[in-house]
C-alpha cells in the first residue's frame, strides 16, 4: 500500500505541518517529517487538510435509474467532491425498504471503492407513508442502517411518524424527515411568494415545511427520540429548530449548498435546472439559513445530490423533475458563502461537512475523526485559493443538472484519501488505483 507524505498542509486551516499516511492510518504528524522510501510526497503549501467529507443526503439512483447515476459514477463524483462517505437515499426502484435492497446497495458501494456507502432505509414500505418498513432488519443487516428516511416524500401521518421515532430508538437510529405537508403542496412548482404569483406557477408555501418541523420536534420531545430535519430551507424553519434546541429536544438539521446561495428569482427564466424540492426560497431565507449554519442551529450541510437524465430537465417547467446535482460543488459553495464571508472557519467546515454528519449517521467510529495520529486516514486536501468555472459536462457525475453551470466558484479538491488510499490526486479521480482495490 502506498505511503503518502502530505508536506506543509494546514490541518483544519491551522499551522502548517507534515502528515504521513501509512497502512490506512495517520502515522505521524509534525513539521519536517522525513519521507520514507517509496513514499509519494504531496506538496501541500497553502492547502487545507480536512477530515474526509461525509454526505448525509445523496441520491445515487441505483437500483432503478441507472440512466441518471450509478453507484459507481455517483461515488466517483463524491470522491471528486472530497467525500469519503455518503448516505444513499432510499427512493430507489425497488425502494430501499428491505434488508435485501440495502445490502445490495452497500455491496455495490464496497465494490465501487470510491467512498463508504451507507444506505438509508425507507421509513415506510415503498415510501407510501402507511406502514413501517422492516427497520430492525435493515439495522441488523450487513449495511447496518442507522438513518431512516422517506425522502422525496414526507412521513406526514403523525401516528406513523411517532411510531418510527419510537421504534428506531432500539438500535440508536434516527428518522430523517423530508418536511412537506402534502395537502398544502399539491401540484406545487416553486416557492409561494411574489415570484410565483407573477409567473403563475403553483406555490410551495414555507408553512408546509415549517408546520411539519414544528410537529415533529414536539413528537420527538414527547417520545424522547432523536430527529433529523432534511434540507431545511426557510427562515421560519431555522427559528423552530433554534427554539427546539433551546428546549433540549434532540433534533439536528441540514441545509443544502443550493439553499445557501440560490433564490426563487432564478425561476423567472422558467429554466427547470432551478426546479428543486424544497424549492429555492427568498434572499431573506438564504440569509437566515446562513446565520443558522454559522450559529450551530443548523448542524450540517448535505448535498441532496439529485441527478436526472437530460430529458427530464429539457422541457417545460411543470413537466421537469425536481432536483440538482451537488457532490462536486458543495465544498466550494460552503467556502464561498461561509468561509470567504468570514462566517465560519475551516474547523467549522470540518464540523458541518464531516464530524457532525458522521455523528448523526452513527458512522463516527470511522468517519469525521480528528486529524490525529492513529486515526483512520479518511482525509480531504483542499486548495482554497483555486478558482474554477463549473462545467457540468466535465464533472464525474453522470448527469449535468448542476445549477452552477458557468459560475465561477472558489476552492478545489486536490486529493481525497479513503483509509489511506488516494481516490483523488492532483484533482483527478484515481481510476486505476481504485479499480485495483476491487
Amino acid at each position, binding site marked *: 500500500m502506498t505511503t503518502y507524505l502530505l508536506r506543509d498542509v494546514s490541518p483544519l486551516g491551522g499551522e502548517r505541518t507534515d502528515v504521513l499516511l501509512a497502512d490506512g492510518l495517520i502515522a505521524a504528524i509534525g513539521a519536517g517529517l522525513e519521507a520514507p522510501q517509496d513514499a509519494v510526497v504531496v506538496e501541500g503549501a497553502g492547502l487545507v487538510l480536512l477530515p474526509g467529507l461525509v454526505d448525509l443526503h445523496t441520491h445515487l439512483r441505483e437500483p432503478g435509474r441507472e440512466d441518471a447515476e450509478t453507484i459507481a459514477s455517483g461515488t466517483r463524483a463524491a470522491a471528486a467532491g472530497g467525500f469519503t462517505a455518503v448516505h444513499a437515499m432510499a427512493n430507489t426502484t425497488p425502494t430501499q425498504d428491505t434488508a435485501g435492497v440495502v445490502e445490495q446497495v452497500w455491496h455495490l458501494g464496497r465494490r465501487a471503492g470510491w467512498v463508504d456507502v451507507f444506505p438509508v432505509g425507507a421509513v415506510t414500505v415503498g415510501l407510501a407513508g402507511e406502514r413501517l418498513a422492516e427497520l430492525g432488519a435493515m439495522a441488523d443487516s450487513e449495511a447496518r442502517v442507522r438513518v431512516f428516511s422517506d425522502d422525496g416524500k414526507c412521513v406526514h401521518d403523525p401516528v406513523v411518524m411517532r411510531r418510527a421515532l419510537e421504534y428506531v430508538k432500539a438500535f440508536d437510529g434516527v428518522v430523517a424527515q423530508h418536511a412537506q405537508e402534502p395537502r398544502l403542496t399539491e401540484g406545487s412548482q416553486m416557492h409561494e411568494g411574489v415570484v410565483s404569483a407573477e*409567473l*403563475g*406557477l403553483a*406555490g410551495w408555501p414555507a408553512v408546509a415545511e415549517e408546520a411539519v418541523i414544528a410537529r415533529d420536534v414536539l413528537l420527538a420531545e414527547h417520545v424522547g427520540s432523536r430527529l433529523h430535519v432534511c434540507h431545511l430551507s426557510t427562515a421560519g424553519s431555522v427559528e423552530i429548530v433554534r427554539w427546539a434546541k433551546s428546549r433540549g429536544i434532540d433534533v439536528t438539521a441540514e441545509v443544502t449548498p443550493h439553499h445557501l446561495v440560490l433564490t426563487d428569482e432564478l425561476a423567472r427564466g*422558467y429554466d427547470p435546472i432551478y426546479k428543486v424540492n424544497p424549492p429555492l426560497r427568498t434572499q431573506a431565507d438564504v440569509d437566515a439559513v446562513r446565520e443558522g449554519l454559522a450559529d450551530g442551529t443548523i448542524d450540517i450541510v448535505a448535498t441532496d445530490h439529485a441527478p436526472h437524465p437530460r430529458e427530464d430537465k429539457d422541457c*417545460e417547467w*411543470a*413537466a421537469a423533475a425536481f432536483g440538482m446535482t451537488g457532490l462536486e460543488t458543495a465544498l466550494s459553495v460552503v467556502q464561498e458563502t461561509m468561509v470567504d464571508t468570514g462566517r465560519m472557519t475551516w474547523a467549522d467546515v470540518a464540523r458541518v461537512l464531516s464530524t457532525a454528519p458522521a455523528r448523526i449517521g452513527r458512522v463516527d467510529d470511522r468517519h469525521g475523526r480528528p486529524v490525529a495520529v492513529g486515526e483512520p486516514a479518511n482525509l480531504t486536501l483542499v486548495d482554497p485559493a483555486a478558482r474554477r468555472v463549473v462545467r457540468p459536462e466535465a464533472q464525474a457525475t453522470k448527469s449535468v443538472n448542476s445549477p452552477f453551470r458557468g459560475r465561477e466558484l472558489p476552492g478545489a479538491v486536490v486529493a481525497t484519501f479513503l483509509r489511506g488510499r488516494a481516490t483523488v490526486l492532483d484533482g483527478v479521480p484515481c481510476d486505476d488505483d481504485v479499480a485495483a482495490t476491487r
Partner: protein
Amino acid sequence: MKHLLSTGDLTRDEAVLILDTAGQMAATQAREIKKLPTLRGRTVVNLFFEDSTRTRISFETAAKRLSADVINFSAKGSSVSKGESLKDTALTLQAMGADAVVIRHQASGAPHTLATSGWTHGAVVNAGDGTHQHPTQALLDAYTLRRHLVGAGGAQDPSGRDLDGLHVAIVGDVLHSRVARSNVQLLHTLGAHVTLVAPPTLVPVGVEAWPCDVSYRLDDVIDTKPDAVMMLRVQRERMSSAGGGFFPSPLEYTRGYGLDARRLAALPDHAIVMHPGPMNRGLEISADAADSPRAVIVEQVANGVAVRMAVLYLLLAGGQTPVAPQPNPNRSAE
C-alpha cells in the same frame, strides 16, 4: 419585438403601437375584401396543447386575413403523459419552416421555454400559458377600453393615446387567471388604475408586488365608479374540495362577486362591461349584464382578430411594409 410572451415585456410605446396597428387592421376589415397580402408566403403554426376553439379560430382568422399559410397543430394532453415532448414537437415544426408559432399550453412558461430554447427560430406568440399570461387577450381588452373610453367616448380617433386615468375593476378568479395577470401589467403600463376584486382565497399570495389595488368587496369597488368592469370566468369545480375548496357554493360566490342587475345599475353611465369568455351566465355574470347595451363582450371577440393581425404583422413583417396597401385598380383582388 421578436416574440410576444408577456405583457410585462411591452413598453408603453410598443403597446400603443400594437393598438394603433390594430386600429388600422380593423379599418381594413370594414372593406368588402378583407384579405391583405401582407404575409403571403409566410407560415403561421397554431400549436395548441390545450383546447381553446375561440382563441385558435381568432388567430387562424387573423393569419388568413393577412394571407399567411396556417397550420393547426392540436396536441392535447401534457407532453410528458401523451408521448411527444414539447422539444420534439417544436423541432418538427421548425423543420417544416414555421415563421411564427402561436402556442397555447397548460404549463406556465412553456412559450418562454420555446422562445429561449433554440428549438425554433420563428417568432413565438403566447396564446395563453397555464396561469401565467395571455397577452393578446389583454391587448384586445386594452383596445376595446380605448375605443370606448378614450377620445370623447369613441367620437375621436384614439390613435397614439394610452389609457391614462381610467379605472378598471377586474373581478373573479385572479389566482388561476392568466387574463388578470396580463391585464394588470398591460393596463398599468398604459396608465390605467386597476383594482382586482375577488374572495381572498382566489387572490395569489405575493399579489402585493403587483401594480394594482386589491379589494374583497365588489360593492365597495362599484361605489368608486369604475370606468369598466371585467368579469373573469369562474370554474364551478373550484368550490369542491377536490378542486381546492376556494368558495363554499356558487350561490355565495354570485351574491358576493356576481355582476347582477343591481350592481349593473349602480355603475356609472359610461362604464362598460367586459368578459374574456366563455361566460358562466348566472355565476359570475347575470344575463341582465351580459346582454345589456353596456356589455362589449361580442365586440371584444371582433377586436381580438384585429389585435392578433397587428401582432402577427408587427412580428413577421416588422412593420416594414404598409399595413394596408391601397387596392390597385389595375389588379384584380384576390
